[in-house]
């Protein structure tokens, strides 16, 4: 078919790159163009007499009648309305429709013109946007939910630890009191050894409970409270060394420090920190080599280090050492909860200090430094 030589209005109407529909005053189709018929697969004659809503699905009809029909009547037009027209073969034709009413001078409706543009790609794009938004919202809801659940679990766990700490202390105190009583009476050599072992275990367990309690308190918002005083360092360290010697009589512990050195600190906390570092060195150090403790006070700084021989700490473990519940060997039953170094570092921080580690084939050394006036 030869095309029109020049623009002609008949052809513009029939073969425009958009669909045209005209509705009579009763809302029924009186005229439509070839383009629309091609898109729908329905001949123009077959469209005449239908209403716009007859071309929609039932759901579309309800939406049209409750929204677009009133909008058209109220405004006299609607623009960019998304409709799904149903083709002859039952498949949807996604379109955007504009409509405008034409009224006479009395305001009586004469007819309504509807222009239809194909919008398949656009609709797909919009659909994807909606999907993406919904996915994002669902993910946000999910992560918020997880966060909340995690928070609740953490709170419960810490309350549990706090309660457990208190409940463990009481029987331990009773055992401690009992062994004290026994030691004041004459005992056989064997009994004395057993009592010594029991006291060592009580001490170790008491240290573990202290750590758990501190951990729970730290996390529960109480933080570490310091009770500073200026006192000689020797008795504080010597007591810890003595306790651990009792628990590990076969291990050698060397203590090197200036006997007159005085330190301003919370000495009970300092003892706890030192006890954790020393116990750590004994547990992980080579059993046939001494653990060496050095304490130096100089240039406004206390430097306290604990060194042991033995295999070095693997580089990948270095960053984890001071994390709570970190254990080099999670299956080990002798390492406790993995709170010792964490608590030690918390105590160091509370004193405005820090703990550094060096580890090589010769020795592993934990060094605590804190400022002194």
């Amino acid at each position, binding site marked *: 078919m030869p095309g029109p030589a020049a623009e002609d209005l008949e052809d513009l109407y029939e073969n425009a790159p958009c669909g045209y529909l005209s509705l009579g005053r009763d809302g029924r189709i009186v005229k439509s163009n070839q383009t629309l018929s091609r898109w729908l697969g329905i001949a123009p004659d077959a469209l005449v007499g239908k209403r716009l809503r007859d071309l929609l699905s039932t759901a579309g009809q309800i939406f049209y*009648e409750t929204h677009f*029909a009133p*909008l058209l009547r109220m405004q006299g037009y609607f*623009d960019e*309305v*998304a409709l799904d027209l149903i083709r002859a073969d039952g498949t949807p034709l996604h379109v955007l429709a504009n409509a405008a009413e034409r009224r006479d001078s009395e305001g009586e409706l004469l007819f309504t013109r509807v222009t239809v543009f194909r919008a398949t790609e656009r609709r797909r794009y919009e659909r994807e946007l909606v999907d993406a938004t919904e996915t994002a919202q669902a993910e946000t809801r999910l992560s918020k939910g997880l966060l909340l659940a995690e928070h609740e679990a953490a709170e419960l766990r810490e309350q549990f630890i706090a309660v457990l700490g208190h409940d463990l202390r009481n029987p331990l105190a009773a055992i401690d009191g009992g062994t004290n009583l026994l030691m004041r009476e004459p005992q056989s050599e064997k009994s004395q050894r057993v009592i010594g072992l029991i006291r060592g275990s009580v001490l170790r367990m008491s240290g573990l409970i202290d750590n758990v309690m501190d951990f729970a308190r730290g996390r529960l918002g109480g933080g570490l409270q310091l009770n500073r005083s200026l006192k000689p360092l020797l008795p504080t360290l010597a007591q810890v060394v003595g306790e651990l010697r009792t628990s590990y009589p076969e291990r050698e512990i060397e203590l090197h420090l200036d006997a007159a050195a005085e330190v301003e600190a919370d000495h009970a906390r300092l003892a706890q920190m030192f006890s954790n570092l020393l116990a750590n060195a004994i547990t992980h150090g080579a059993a046939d080599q001494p653990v060496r403790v050095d304490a130096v006070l100089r240039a406004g700084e206390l430097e306290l280090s604990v060194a042991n021989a033995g295999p070095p700490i693997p580089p990948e473990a270095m960053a984890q050492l001071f994390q709570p519940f970190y254990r080099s060997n999670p299956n080990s039953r002798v390492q406790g909860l993995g709170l010792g170094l964490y608590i030690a570092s918390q105590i160091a921080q509370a004193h405005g200090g820090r703990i550094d580690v060096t580890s090589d084939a010769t020795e592993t050394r934990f060094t605590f430094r804190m400022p002194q006036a």
Partner: protein
Amino acid sequence: MTVIVRNHVVTAGAGLKPMIFAHGFGCDQNMWRFVAPAFEADHLTVLFDHVGAGKSDLSAYDAGKYSTLEGYADDLVEIGRALGVGGGVFVGHSVSAMIGVLASLKAPEMFESLVLVGPSPRYIDAEGYHGGFTAQQIEELLASLADNHMGWSAAMAPAIMGNADRPELGEELTNSFCRTDPAIARQFARTTFTADNRADLAKVTARTLILQCSDDIIASEAVGAYVRDNIPGSEMKILQATGHCPNLSAPAEVIAAIRDFI
């Protein structure tokens, strides 16, 4: 917050017998702008937006409360009480017809007459009852609301152009009419189209007029007849107007029918 603000209540006129007009699913109180003014000379007219529609306070939208028509009916009763309405006339379109029925049961003194425009007590077919839609079709509608709200918002927020033919419609109106938060629209659609208030019809004691359009796919003539047969003493008038919104497409006919009745 007062119900007046919450529901964007607008009153006009004065008279002994107040009239409350309620809009249906899809639009807002402007649905009545061609009808309500005709009664201002003899009546206090009350227009309002359901919460979630028009200029209502969206922050008052409570998905739980508005998951049944009872929630909307409670609002209507509150509005009536706030304005001291007694022995008045309720005019409700579409889903609001049933909201008015429920309100009249909650507060029988409030309305002496009910005018129900295109009412349906249940849209989904049931045994021995033809509501006009299958459950599946309603599910498709609800799904398509979710599906099409992009297109919907594109339709509702066009560049506002002057409308030479209808200068009385200001920009403000063009902006707000029919515009609904898509999530709320979906909820309201579910509440509306899954409701079943057939059992409430028999309890109505107010005089009742049913205005039934010809060729209304949302509420067919058979449904209108069902409402008439079940509300004691009610009468039904078939309008020449076609479609679901005679209050817009044939206001004169609606006004005349209401006037005859009251």
